[in-house]
């Protein structure tokens, strides 16, 4: 019966995917109508140059780094490639084992393996999806709405394909690690209660239908890039996106058994500190890697990342110390992640003092969002994916519009007199939240119909480890 159910699920999965995708490519769909307005420059199928993220494109002219300005054909730079290979490893490190440990330490012991399983399995799943279609949807040109099918199964990606000064293979893998971590971030919001089969189905749809399009809009030459939204390394694409999807998931799945009435404490914060530390270290690849070169832009991105993170960590710690009497290690690591999330969109645009301000704002804002606000609103965002990622992402995207320094990222912000940038940033935020929330909701409801989203009460009480995976930590 289980087998039967699984087969049905697999079939349903295929069908759903198929159905969902028809409109994307059908010429009569709304999508395509919007797509009429598209200008797709230099799109020759054979020698296609993958688009650089908008962020990079925006930065290039202003930066002092010897980036191709007049030269029509950039050549491979081993230094840039070395850094991007490293950055790819660093961003993968953020998810495995970074998020495995960060999230694993925060759940109860009976659910820690299920959490690890979710993180690891999504890593595998999104890798394969990205190779099959996700990369093509996000970065293969296409319209301002979605890429096309030119790079499905990475066809056409040869040893000669370059993306700027690095091999396309490196760019593709680097971007893959972003697609992975965004999906994995979400699971913290509805930890300890989702069926594993449901998760796999949901994430398949989410990665292809939510992540890839938004990545395309912001980094793949899509309409948000065209609108001038500044998002260096993923305030919208990664953090707001994951945070909003998490919140929708937490609301649709409902609260954990016992939430509000019994203690659900983290079982081992040592793991979480180790995980947060790896997230921090790996984030150098995330942000400084988003410069797609080993130059001054990467250096400054690393410096501002470090400063924002530390400041936000201290900000949360002192907030808690003053308000609750004790500074906690869960608090300081939460603050650090908030600081990392907030500096993400800004890291190619602001200077160290801007980073200090952004870190401070993110630490304080996320502290309130994850404590008072969550309590007041009553939803069970178990590991505060919304309270930390969506909030810090929002703070960061807005403040990028405020603190952007023309001499660094090529675009001035509010403080340099360009108040309109803040409005553009708000537009980017609104689009991301709206699209992500709606599609996430639909996907969850579909999956609920197909296999059901939530484990039964006995399984939840005994723990997902033994029930879903037949394993325990002794």
């Amino acid at each position, binding site marked *: 019966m289980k087998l039967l159910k699984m087969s049905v699920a697999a079939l349903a999965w295929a069908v759903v995917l198929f159905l969902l995708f028809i409109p994307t490519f059908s010429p009569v769909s709304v999508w395509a109508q919007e797509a009429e307005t598209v200008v797709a420059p230099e799109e020759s199928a054979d020698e296609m140059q993958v688009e650089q993220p908008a962020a990079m494109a925006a930065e290039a002219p202003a930066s002092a780094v010897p980036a191709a300005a007049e030269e029509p054909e950039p050549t491979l730079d081993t230094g840039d490639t070395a850094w991007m290979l490293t950055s790819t490893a660093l961003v993968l490190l953020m998810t495995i084992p970074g998020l495995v440990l960060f999230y694993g330490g925060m759940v109860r012991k009976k659910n820690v393996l299920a959490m690890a399983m979710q993180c690891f399995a999504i890593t595998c799943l999104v890798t394969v999806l990205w190779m099959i279609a996700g990369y093509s949807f996000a970065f293969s040109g296409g319209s301002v709405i979605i890429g096309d099918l030119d790079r499905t199964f990475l066809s056409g990606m040869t040893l000669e394909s370059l993306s700027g000064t690095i091999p396309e293979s490196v760019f593709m893998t680097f971007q893959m690690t972003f697609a992975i971590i965004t999906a994995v971030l979400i699971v913290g919001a509805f930890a300890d209660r989702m069926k594993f089969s449901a998760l796999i189905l949901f994430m398949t749809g989410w990665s292809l239908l939510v992540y890839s399009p938004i990545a395309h809009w912001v980094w793949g030459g899509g309409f948000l890039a065209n609108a001038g939204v500044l998002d260096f390394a993923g305030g919208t694409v990664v953090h707001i996106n994951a945070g909003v999807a998490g919140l929708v998931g937490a609301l649709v799945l409902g609260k954990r058994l*016992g939430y509000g009435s*019994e203690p659900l404490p983290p079982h081992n914060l040592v793991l979480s500190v180790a995980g947060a530390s790896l997230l921090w270290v790996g984030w150098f690849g995330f942000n400084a890697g988003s410069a797609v070169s080993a130059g001054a832009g990467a250096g400054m991105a690393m410096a501002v990342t470090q400063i924002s993170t530390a400041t936000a960590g201290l900000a949360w710690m002192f907030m808690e110390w003053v308000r609750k009497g004790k500074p906690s290690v869960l608090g300081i690591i939460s603050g650090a992640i908030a600081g990392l999330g907030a500096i993400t969109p800004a890291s190619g645009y602001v200077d160290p003092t801007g980073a200090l301000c952004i870190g401070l704002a993110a630490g304080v804002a996320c502290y309130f969002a994850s404590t008072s606000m969550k309590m007041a609103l009553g939803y069970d965002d178990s590991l505060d994916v919304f309270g930390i990622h969506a909030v810090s992402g929002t703070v960061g995207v807005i403040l990028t519009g405020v603190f952007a320094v023309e001499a660094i990222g090529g675009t001035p912000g509010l403080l340099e007199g360009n108040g309109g940038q803040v409005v553009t940033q708000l537009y980017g935020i609104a689009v991301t939240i709206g699209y992500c929330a709606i599609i996430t909701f639909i996907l969850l409801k579909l999956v609920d119909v197909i296999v059901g989203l939530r484990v039964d009460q006995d399984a939840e*009480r005994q723990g997902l480890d*033994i029930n879903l995976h*037949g*394993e*325990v930590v002794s």
Partner: protein
Amino acid sequence: MQKIEAIIRPFKLDDVKKALNDLGIQGLTVHEVKGFGRQKGHTELYRGAEYVVDLLPKVKIDVVLDDGQVEAAIDAISQVAKSGKIGDGKIFVSPISEVVRIRTGERGGSAL
């Protein structure tokens, strides 16, 4: 005096504690134990190796109390710890001949 040893499901601990407290019982001691009984165990699978785990996590509560409180305590525990499914647990009662409060040296009922 008597000692009640109640073996219950772990997630019922908070409720039992509250129920006893409501009876005016001010102290108890909790053990994490594993129980073997009629309740079916789980299967764990590690690569090729499959194990049936029939020792299940339980909580044992020790409460020492005056003879007069025993029935009330049994009732209270039985009521809140009951789910009706196999594995709810047992209550054992045994005699205690002396109680000492270490802090004060008090003995007997007043030491509780």
